[in-house]
């Protein structure tokens, strides 16, 4: 009897420690995420305009990281879109279209916000890195969809102009966890630059629509 209870006790202890070891060697997803964020902070240094605060994630970045390798639940996607839509700063003068010629320059310009860039130098949208726009430019990327004939295909109306403005200002308002930067929201481009890009997409005279 005495021996038997000892065996039971040892077995229980064995199982308990096996469970503990198991827990220690396979951390949960949340634990790994937390550790990864902490290790990242120890692995960078501020350089010029790129400060360490760039590693501080906002709610959108945090959620998009969390769901990066799995399907984004519908309620989370809706929450992200709502949050971002609410923060869009619409043009005070109610005008959507700037100058498409300047928009083309903004779309071509790849510099801005890198630690290697002059903080006083130009900041562009680098749209051609990911999108086809004017047909004359054959060096375009494919991470985003082709925007060739954007206005021509969709119609030159205020609804479309507003959509183009909002999408460039904050892409996550329309497509949660978009690959596209939130150009207005994150203060990459000015309101005027966003309007110039809207013109590049929506002005009937823009090469995009020719």
């Amino acid at each position, binding site marked *: 009897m005495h021996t038997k209870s000892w065996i039971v006790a040892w077995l229980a202890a064995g199982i308990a420690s096996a469970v503990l070891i198991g827990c220690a*060697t396979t*951390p949960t997803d949340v634990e*790994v*995420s937390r*550790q*990864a*964020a902490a*290790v*990242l902070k*120890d*692995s*960078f*240094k*501020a*350089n010029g305009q*790129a*400060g*360490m605060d*760039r*590693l*501080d*994630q906002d709610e*959108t*970045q945090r959620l*998009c*990281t969390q769901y*990066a*390798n799995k399907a984004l639940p519908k309620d989370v996607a809706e929450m992200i879109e709502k949050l971002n839509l609410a923060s869009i700063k619409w043009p005070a003068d109610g005008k959507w279209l700037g100058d498409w010629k300047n928009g083309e320059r903004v779309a071509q310009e790849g510099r801005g*916000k*890198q*630690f*290697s860039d002059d903080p006083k130098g130009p900041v562009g949208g680098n749209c*051609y*890195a*990911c999108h086809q726009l004017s*047909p004359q430019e*054959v*060096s*375009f*990327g*494919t*991470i985003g969809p082709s925007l060739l004939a954007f206005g021509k295909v969709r119609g030159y109306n205020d609804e479309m102009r507003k959509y183009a403005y909002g999408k460039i200002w904050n892409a*996550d308002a329309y497509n949660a966890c978009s*690959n596209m*930067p*939130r150009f207005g929201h*994150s*203060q*990459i481009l000015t309101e005027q630059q966003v309007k110039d890009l809207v013109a590049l997409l929506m002005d009937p005279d823009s090469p995009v629509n020719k």
Partner: protein
Amino acid sequence: MKSLTRLHVVCALGAVAVVTAAAAWAQTSAVDEIAKYRAALKDGNPAELWEVRGQGMWAQPRGPKQVSFEKCDLGLGPGVVKGAYAQMPRYFADADRVLDLESRLLWCMVAQQGYTDADARKSPFGAGNERKSDMEALVAYVTSESRGIKMNVALNHPKEQEAYRLGGKMFAFRGGTHDFSCLTCHGDDGKRIRLQDLPNLTTVAGAQLAYTTWPAYRVSQGELRSFQWRLFDCFRQQRFPELLYGSDASIALTMYLARNANGAAFDAPAIKR
């Protein structure tokens, strides 16, 4: 009147078709020309100059203690270079850390050759004709000794497993002004930035293609670039702060990519645009 309208429509459609075809031709021909350029480059790779310089340095007594890298254990025993890179990063008991090649060389410089940590890190990347990096030459030599050898990175030690897990998480970490993560550019098949093809590093085929062709001689920079440089420059373009040379994040990401490349024959130093 009716037929005139129809004629206009036909002409307009024809014009659109010609313009579209011309644009497509211009692009295809640009991509073809780049492929030809790359093929031509392979003929004579200046990376050999870095390899030869690195080989010479390997045997030289170095640092305050005048010890050569022949005492440096890259995982297969002191001074063994052949095939060592194909099994890195790995856990090193003497450092009690997982180290990639470059952080291992730093460890040997400090622990064996007597350099201060700051001195060892002084010149990780060369700057064209202005300044050549000893580290990039050493990297060229050591990696060249794994050419043709299959990638075989182990996840035996708990710290190796941890580095791999963390690297995978970091790969998805969104941050900075532009919300970029590694996945933004390297999470899908068949994408390009401008005309530059992007490997999908979440697939075995993509990781193998990319990882086995670094380090590389970068024609546009006139420099041999190491894998630490590759990560450093990706994060610069992601608008992140500066990735610290040999940092834990750099090693974890390298572990994630190197391990995913397992099974493919290593084929570097390569040459890239």
